[in-house]
């Protein structure tokens, strides 16, 4: 692209003049167009004025009334002296014909003023346009004057203002253009080009690392969120949470950084791993004091191995599980007697539903009382409404002792039966009114022996029957064994409520 430098001299740049950045010739032509437009407007106003002056001469005129852009109707124009004039912005004024004439005159004045201004501008630029034309003619004609022209070969600079596209978020910064220009100007500079390529390689490598870091960051965030939800359920300590929050903050901050450090990322993952262990450590610690360094979650298994005795001690609403030494001794004793394999003493190895009830045992007066319900807290049991009083508890203790003796006498005593015993004691508290006729389950029977035996309600109830899977029934049976023994002559065949039996006794 070449520029005529001589034109710079003769006329100012289009940006200096007030005519919207146009060369003089263009200015002249635009002025002429405007002038023509205004002249037409003026002529229209003149015609209107003439019409308005003659309008009141007649009462009505025969006209073709337009309706729509293309259709007309013959009609009359009435009220010839009333004219509604548009003042602008949809405002109208109603006036007489003469007043309208004056308004039109006022507008014509403005039009004339605009015309005059345009004429002046045109005159000013006409001279310049003439001058440039003359110069061009002279340059073409004569050979003395030569245009100084500079040819620019490279078009890169011209494309600065072209359409721009946004950079990608983690892209490298743009290498400036003048790098290449220098190469072109200085010739081939191999050294600098070599450096340039190595830099490109470095940038590519950095991009790859960033991508990897992002992927790892997403992966790390997944277990982290799962961990946080799990922790909310358990009673987590504040320190632990704060620690986690801090780590999260640092991790997110790292994500924001475009060029992440690989080493930092690795250390963060290690911290997270450690925290996972620590959280589980805390989690298990809440449940079991003895469970030190064990990362497993307590689960329910169903098998027939010896499991530890666990006692749950109520402390009002908040219940904590603590290991009972007594139970541990009993377990050890049983283990030695049975010679079974060692079960994991730390966990509450719940393998049967009976184990659940064994686990939930209260301490009353130093003795272990089976709980009425695993869902209820201890305070409820001591309330007036329930039937659990210390006196009755003492009675139950005696019975329990008897039953224990019975159970322990049996050689093939298993833990399950003792658990059943404990369950019965628990259940008897709530079920005094329902003496059932089920035969007692002595220590010989095991829960989940694998066989299901039909109950015989009328059989002499003292023969040991294998108990059904339902833990409730056998407990009451076993508990009531003594009572049933005593009451056997009274209720040989059918069930009678206690009150009815009492009434019968009274009547008889």
């Amino acid at each position, binding site marked *: 692209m070449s520029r005529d430098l001589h034109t710079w001299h003769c006329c100012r740049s289009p940006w200096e003049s007030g005519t919207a950045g146009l060369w003089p010739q263009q200015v002249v032509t635009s002025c002429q167009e405007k002038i023509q437009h205004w002249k037409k407007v003026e*002529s*229209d106003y003149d*015609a*209107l004025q003439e*019409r308005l002056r003659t309008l009141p001469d007649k009462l009505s*005129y*025969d*006209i*073709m*009334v*337009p309706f729509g*852009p293309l259709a*007309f109707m013959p009609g009359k*124009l009435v009220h010839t002296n009333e004219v509604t004039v548009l003042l602008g912005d949809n405002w109208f004024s109603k006036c007489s014909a003469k007043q309208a004439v004056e308004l039109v005159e006022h507008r014509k004045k403005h039009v004339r003023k605009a015309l005059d201004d345009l004429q002046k501008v045109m005159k000013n630029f006409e001279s310049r346009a003439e001058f440039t034309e003359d110069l061009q003619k002279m340059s073409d004609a004569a050979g003395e004057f030569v245009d100084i022209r500079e040819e620019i070969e490279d078009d890169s600079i011209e494309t600065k203002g072209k359409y721009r596209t946004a950079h990608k978020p983690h892209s490298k910064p743009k290498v400036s253009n003048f790098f290449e220009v220098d190469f072109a100007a200085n010739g081939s500079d191999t050294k600098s080009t070599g450096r340039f390529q190595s830099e490109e390689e470095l940038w590519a490598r950095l991009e790859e690392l960033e991508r990897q870091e992002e992927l790892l960051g997403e992966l790390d965030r997944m277990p982290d969120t799962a961990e946080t939800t799990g922790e909310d359920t358990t009673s987590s300590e504040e320190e632990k949470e704060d620690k986690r929050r801090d780590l999260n903050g640092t991790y997110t901050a790292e994500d924001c950084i475009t060029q992440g450090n690989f080493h930092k990322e690795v250390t963060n993952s290690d911290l997270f791993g450690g925290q996972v262990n620590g959280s589980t450590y805390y989690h298990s610690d809440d449940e079991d004091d003895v469970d030190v360094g064990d990362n497993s979650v307590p689960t329910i298994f169903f098998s027939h191995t010896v499991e530890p005795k666990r006692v749950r001690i109520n402390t009002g609403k908040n219940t904590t599980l603590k290991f009972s030494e007594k139970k541990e001794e009993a377990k050890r004793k049983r283990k030695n007697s049975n010679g079974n394999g060692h079960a994991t003493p730390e966990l509450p190895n719940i393998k049967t539903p009976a184990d659940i009830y064994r686990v939930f045992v209260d301490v009353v007066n130093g003795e272990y009382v089976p709980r009425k319900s695993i869902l209820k807290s201890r305070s409820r049991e001591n309330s007036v409404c329930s039937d659990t009083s210390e006196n009755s508890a003492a009675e139950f203790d005696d019975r329990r002792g008897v039953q224990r003796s019975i159970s322990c006498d049996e050689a093939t005593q298993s833990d399950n039966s003792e658990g059943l015993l404990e369950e019965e004691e628990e259940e008897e508290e709530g079920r005094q009114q329902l003496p059932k006729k089920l035969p007692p389950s002595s220590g010989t029977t095991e829960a989940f022996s694998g066989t299901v035996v039909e109950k015989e309600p009328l059989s002499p109830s003292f023969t040991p029957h294998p108990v059904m899977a339902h833990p409730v029934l056998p407990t009451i049976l076993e508990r009531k064994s003594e009572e049933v023994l005593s009451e056997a002559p009274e209720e040989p065949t059918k069930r009678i409520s206690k009150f009815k039996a009492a009434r019968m006794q009274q009547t008889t």
Partner: protein
Amino acid sequence: MAAARREELSRRIKEQKVVVDELSNLKKNRKVYRQQPNSNIFFLADRTETLSQCKNTLDELKKAYQDMENSQKTEIKK
């Protein structure tokens, strides 16, 4: 620029000729309406008067055209 003006004039002259011919070919009972400039309203006009007016404008245009041609010719001669 002069050529543009000349063409403009010639176009106008043609239009006026058509108008004059049309008006002269009208029947006696026909009504002639004149349009108000820059609007869509037509006022009733007298046929004979409008005919005469149109003829006058045509003559004027022709005259102007002639003058322009004469001036150009004189310029070329110079």
